[in-house]
């Protein structure tokens, strides 16, 4: 696990360096423009190697210094410049409003809310998504545009409603409140207009925050969640039906697979950590385990888009908040007594312990949230980076020999990583469940030896 986290840090640092170098440049990566002078450089990255993580190419933000990107015919995109592994990785682990499998981008329903515009419901196909690309749209719809697979909103109030053809996308660095901030731009009628990303609940901590609209779309992650949960629900309902129909018989079919897991979670996780009251928490623990495991595994299935669901902070945050609520609602007198006024400890020490214990209430779910997020995201990034080695060594198609050499090494490395990720999928689901059980156990434990302890002090 550690190794992977280091990897993530290194990638982040590398990304930061590249970013710093480009910080002064405004850079644009246009959708449609034909660059005659560079037409010979149509890069090999367009040819998809079939792996979902590298299923579509990632031209770096083109290093052209052209300030304007004129709208042009929607022809095959021509990009030039170096391949940016960081951006590739970040694009792939993002939650998107299109579902990309290989070179195809499948549209998803958009449910958007802007306070000054109301609700908008439409399919992301309205954006005219270009296959063989990141999933950027050729059209704006009700001031919304699709940039790199994500819905953004034109903040300019003069921008027309309805379906409007747009040019390419770009980005620029802006100084805002003494902070450098990257702002996405869309080219429309020769002007570059700033775009707003969807509001996020990070409180500005990670450069997000409340913007001009909210995105409640059935995104890639939501669709993956719906699919996996529907599949699991079907499996468990049919299992339950069989148990009712033929009680006390030997397991058949899916029961053979899931029964040992359920029994393991019951006997090795719930019983030892929660104690005799474990039965009422079994549905929660099993739901958590199978939700996390199912989505961890789903994200690793090749050719299915590699949805990074459990590697999204929103998902792990919801799970952690639910665990937090359950633990603190079910916490008994002893639990709160231990937090607020630890028995059997001198009063001076209590004043130190109490704030720490109160912090601990929040730290526990936060670690749950971050552990799962970091592990799964790091796993996805590592695999994408290994695949990207082909393009890095191949100089985006210029050096086929180096690319072939790198492909061999990359496949071996990726196979190795995917095997580890398979293990990680189970370990993280198990760890999440185990820690949840231990937190619930600690909150609901009955202490019988208190009188005895108090007598000493």
């Amino acid at each position: 696990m550690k190794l992977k986290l280091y990897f993530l840090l290194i990638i982040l640092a590398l990304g930061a360096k590249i970013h710093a170098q480009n910080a002064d440049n405004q850079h644009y990566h246009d959708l449609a423009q034909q660059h005659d002078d560079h037409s010979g450089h149509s890069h090999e990255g367009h040819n998809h190697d079939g792996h979902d993580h590298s299923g579509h190419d990632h031209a770096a933000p083109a290093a052209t210094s052209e300030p304007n990107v004129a709208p042009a015919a929607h022809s095959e995109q021509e990009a030039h410049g170096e391949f940016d592994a960081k951006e590739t990785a970040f694009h792939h682990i993002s939650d998107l409003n299109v579902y990309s499998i290989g070179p195809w981008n499948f549209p998803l329903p958009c449910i958007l809310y802007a306070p000054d515009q109301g609700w908008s419901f439409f399919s992301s196909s309205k954006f005219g998504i270009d296959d063989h690309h990141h999933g950027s749209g050729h059209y704006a719809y009700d001031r919304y545009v699709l940039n790199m697979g994500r819905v953004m909103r034109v903040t300019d109030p003069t921008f027309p409603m309805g379906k409007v053809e747009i040019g390419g996308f770009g980005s620029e660095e802006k100084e805002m409140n003494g902070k450098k901030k990257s702002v996405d731009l869309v080219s429309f009628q020769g002007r570059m207009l700033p775009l707003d990303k969807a509001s996020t609940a990070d409180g500005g901590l990670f450069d997000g925050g409340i913007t001009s609209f909210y995105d409640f779309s059935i995104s890639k992650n939501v669709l993956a969640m719906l699919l996996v949960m529907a599949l699991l629900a079907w499996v468990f309902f049919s299992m339950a039906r069989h148990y009712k129909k033929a009680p006390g018989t030997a397991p058949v079919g899916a029961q053979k697979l899931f029964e040992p897991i359920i029994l393991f979670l019951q006997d090795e996780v719930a019983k030892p950590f929660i104690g005799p009251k474990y039965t009422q928490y079994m549905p929660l623990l099993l739901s958590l385990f199978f939700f996390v495991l199912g989505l961890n595994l789903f994200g690793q299935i090749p050719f299915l888009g590699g949805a990074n669901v459990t590697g999204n902070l929103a998902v792990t945050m919801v799970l952690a908040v639910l665990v937090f609520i359950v633990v603190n609602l079910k916490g008994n007198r002893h639990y709160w007594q231990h937090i607020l006024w630890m028995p059997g400890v001198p009063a001076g020490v209590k004043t130190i312990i109490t704030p720490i214990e109160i912090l601990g209430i929040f730290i526990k779910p936060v670690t749950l949230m971050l552990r799962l997020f970091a592990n799964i995201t790091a796993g996805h990034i590592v695999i994408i980076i290994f695949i990207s080695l082909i393009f890095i060594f191949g100089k985006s198609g210029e050096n086929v020999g180096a690319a072939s050499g790198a492909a061999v090494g990359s496949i071996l490395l990726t196979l190795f990583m995917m095997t580890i990720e398979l293990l990680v999928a189970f370990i993280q689901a198990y760890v999440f469940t185990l820690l949840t059980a231990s937190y619930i156990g600690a909150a609901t434990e009955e202490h019988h030896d208190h009188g005895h302890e108090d007598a000493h002090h």
Partner: protein
Amino acid sequence: MDSMILLAMDFSPIKPTFGLLFWTSLIFILFWVIVGKLAFKPIIQALNDRAGSIQESLDAAKTAREEMKNMKSENERIMAEAREEKMRIIREAKESANILIAEAREKAKEEAQRIVTNAKNDIENAKKAALVDVKNQVGAMAVDIAEKVIRQNLRDDSSQQDYIKRLVDDLNTN
């Protein structure tokens, strides 16, 4: 400075969108409530019931084995007792047979003794009767002789002597 540049990158998974928060909560809570109640609870119930019934069966088998073992030892005990009883009966029969034989022998001896005694008594009685008879006859004879002697005496002395002699001879020959 570095941290600011890090934050400037679009590392979107760390920025939880409201949509994903909403949908995750909805989907997970629905899964938890519906699948938890309608599938996980009955599955766990069924698994625990089955575990219970398996345990019961094992216990029952163990008890049955124990009982079998007890029954076997009981049978063996009964057999041993029967064997002992048989031996005892045989021994007693032998003893009683011996006693009977001894008794019979004793009785026979006694009977024989008694017969012998009776015979002796009879012999004695017969002897006595014979003696009495002899005495009577001898008396009669003596009387007879005496009568004859007396009669003879009356005629001749020598002739008397001869006569007595003849009488005694007669007596001897008889």
